[in-house]
């Protein structure tokens, strides 16, 4: 499964696709030595711990990642503007297969001259979409999150991802979502 695939209308091997997908995700976690025993609350706790330390290290950064991390931390109290921002980023990824780290608040759009496809940015958007899915059961969010995850697993090497715990939690979280479907 290649993230560069065009997603439109693939001919599926119905009998194996779903299982193969889940096995590939499990294989990634195995290869990165991540235990898949975590439950959703445990993942939430671990993610918050890591992103809190990110915030304290990047306090002065103007990146939109800081704002998105705050949304993760306060997910239960998202307002209309926050949801609109998440929808904007979702749409942006679907259209451009890219996300940028800076948001031009005057033009109200991502700044395409800023860093492209930073791993923290991809993680925060995908994780927020997973949270949106778990809150609403709307597969529209989940579909884009899966595409972002596939993009991460294809664009970054296993070596790069091994020492990046957030992606492991992201994939683990995705597997837990699939277990419930």
């Amino acid at each position, binding site marked *: 499964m290649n993230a560069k695939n065009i*997603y439109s*209308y693939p001919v*599926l*091997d*119905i009998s194996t696709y*779903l299982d193969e997908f889940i096995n590939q995700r499990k294989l990634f976690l195995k290869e990165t030595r991540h235990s898949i025993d975590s439950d959703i609350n445990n993942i939430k706790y671990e993610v918050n711990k890591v992103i809190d330390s990110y915030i304290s290290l990047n306090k002065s950064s103007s990146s939109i990642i800081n704002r998105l991390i705050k949304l993760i931390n306060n997910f239960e109290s998202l307002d209309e503007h926050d949801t609109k921002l998440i929808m904007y980023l979702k749409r942006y990824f679907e259209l451009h297969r890219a996300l940028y780290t800076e948001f031009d608040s005057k033009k109200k759009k991502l700044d395409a001259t800023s860093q492209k496809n930073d791993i923290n940015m991809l993680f925060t958007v995908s994780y927020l979409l997973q949270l949106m899915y778990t809150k609403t059961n709307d597969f529209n969010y989940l579909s884009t999150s899966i*595409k972002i995850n*596939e993009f991460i697993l294809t664009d970054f090497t296993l070596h790069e991802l091994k020492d990046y715990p957030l992606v492991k939690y992201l994939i683990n979280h995705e597997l837990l979502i699939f277990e419930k479907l």
Partner: protein
Amino acid sequence: MKISNFGIILYPSTRSLAYLHMLSTNNILPKEAIVMGKWPFLPNDILLEAKKYSYAEKYFSLNDNLELLIKHKDINLSLIDSTDINSQEIREALSKAECKNFIFTGGGILKKEVLSLDIDFIHVHPGDINYYRGSTCFHYSYLNKQSVSCTTFIMRKELDRGEVLDISHIDQNIFIENDQSFFIDYIYDPFIRSISLKKLFPHLENLKKKKKIRINEFYGNDHYVIHPVLRSLFIKKINNSYRMNDKKGIYIIDA
């Protein structure tokens, strides 16, 4: 067979075949047909699957030789090489057309130049337009709410928006086998659109008289092409809902 005062633009797709089948089995054919691209067009692997699973008997004929239209001398047939709905060839054919209502079967998103012609283009969208935009939206609606709908509407300048003529709700009792790889995109999707379109047949000659459905606020979100793993899940859920002892098929249900 009644030749009625409406037209159809036939993109080389099973959607066109499904619509033609639905029209002919209801003894109606269009007065004008604009045929895009090369026909016949179906690859052998789809035909083999169709034969194995009797798609022609259960859903619609996959005969793509245009014989149905050619044998009727009263039908004005225009053959166009282009498969781009916005091409100059199509625009010219449409501007010469006598009919004011044309059924659309694909070939891209209609641009301003085509939409500004004095013609109503009828499109069936595979989703309830109140909530769902995007070509794979029936997957989403089924996964979200176990429901599938189609909206028939006259296209306007914005994608999937326009004057709504009908919203049909669809149910199915089918089991999709592992080797029915083409079924959803090439049979199920065009078939649900065709049974929805059928409801409009009495009004095809004069859409103006058809009461429109008021859409107060278009609040459907864009639904981009669904990830294949969720397509796979959609099929699994359709199969899980299969009731072996009940009537099999895909049909319209009352709202």
